[in-house]
């Protein structure tokens, strides 16, 4: 599927560009700047057992599989 391949290649280029630039860029947020990100409202899978069940419901009825998960970050949101 050409569109999917193009999007993936574009994503990979963005990822590589970001990684390369990361070598020259300092972390732009201090731990005390991350209070909002650590708020429970930012944890989209705060209840993993309920989330995994819903993923199970989707997978049983769709062909799409893989790359499940949730947005998050290294912020110690837990």
């Amino acid at each position: 599927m050409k569109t999917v391949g193009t999007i993936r290649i574009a994503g990979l280029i963005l990822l590589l560009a970001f990684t390369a630039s990361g070598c020259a860029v300092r972390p732009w947020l201090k731990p005390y700047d991350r209070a909002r990100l650590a708020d429970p409202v930012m944890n989209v899978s705060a209840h993993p057992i309920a989330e995994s069940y819903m993923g199970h419901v989707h997978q049983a009825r769709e062909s799409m599989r893989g790359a499940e998960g949730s947005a998050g970050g290294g912020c110690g949101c837990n």
Partner: protein
Amino acid sequence: MQLMRTLSVALLLGASTLLQASVLPEDRLDVLYHQYEGGGMKINGPSVLVRKSFADKVAVHANYYVDEVSAASIDVLVSASPYSEERTEKSVGVDYLHGKAIYSLSYANSEENDFEANSVHFDMSQDFFGDLTTLSLGYSKGWDEVFRTGDNSFAEEADRQHFRINLSQILTRNLMASLGHELITDEGYLNNPYRSVRYLTSGGSYSFEPERYPETRTSEATSLRLSYYLPWRAGLHGEYRIYDDSWGIDASSWQVKLIQPLGSNWTLEGRYRAYQQGDADFYADLFPFQNAQNFLARDKELSEFSSTVVGLGIGFEFSKPNWETIDRAGLNLWVDRFSFDYDNYRDIRVDTTPGTEPLYSFDATVTRLLFTLWY
């Protein structure tokens, strides 16, 4: 045999912790009641999860999950009789925190009267770049055994492997992003042993023959997720996922979800999800004649269709000063309404000229009630 995709359930249970390196999962007990009802299917049961950490270094978890299935779906009605069965799944796992990395290992077993799946999963997650970035890598291996009720001579096997990578990035004080990719390969008996395809007969009617699937399948899925902190203290979460596989299926989905606290104890949730997929290369609702091609499928999950989900949830958390070992407790209820519309899967319960039956569609409701203790 209700479900053959149990491998990913254990994956999902682990996935929620994948993206949060440097911190072990919380100690908690979850008791979930789940119910799916729609399209002639009713599936319900409990799921219990226990997590416990030790010395802030190691955390263990165990999950017990049951599906009680009462099946009278359109697939069953046109080629078999309604049936009931039970599926149980057990999984155990351990997480080890070392510096800014978490290593996770888990094992899952799923059993039905005509199906058994075993799988192992390994994941590692590392924080770097001032803890703004988290890189996660994972691998899973699964072994399925497929049987057929009423046929003791039937026994087949399938092996599955998953390779996954995820990069999460804090972008601003209010925004996080996550990019994930997963490759899955299957090899072995990938059919459903009960399903049939239909083909036209010379008399202008139709008949059935067993499905035949390829013995390998490779798929890739990529997801982009964003989470944004809204000015009035709420979380807005977006997700876009694309998929394609060696069977010729391409698919995509997007979802938005809002988590809105009300006061200090209540939380409201709302979500909308849209999904669409194309059909497999060897899918047809009606084949022109018997043995029309090497591979044959009329499984509606391999057809072209779209679906939507609208979901609402409400949660309540509370605690008492005199609780000693328990930190707090919570109760959550979610109700999700699904709508499926098939583009080339016809409702052959309607007796008319083959190939002109109405297209099939159905709605389903999923209910989840969760009780949690954090300790």
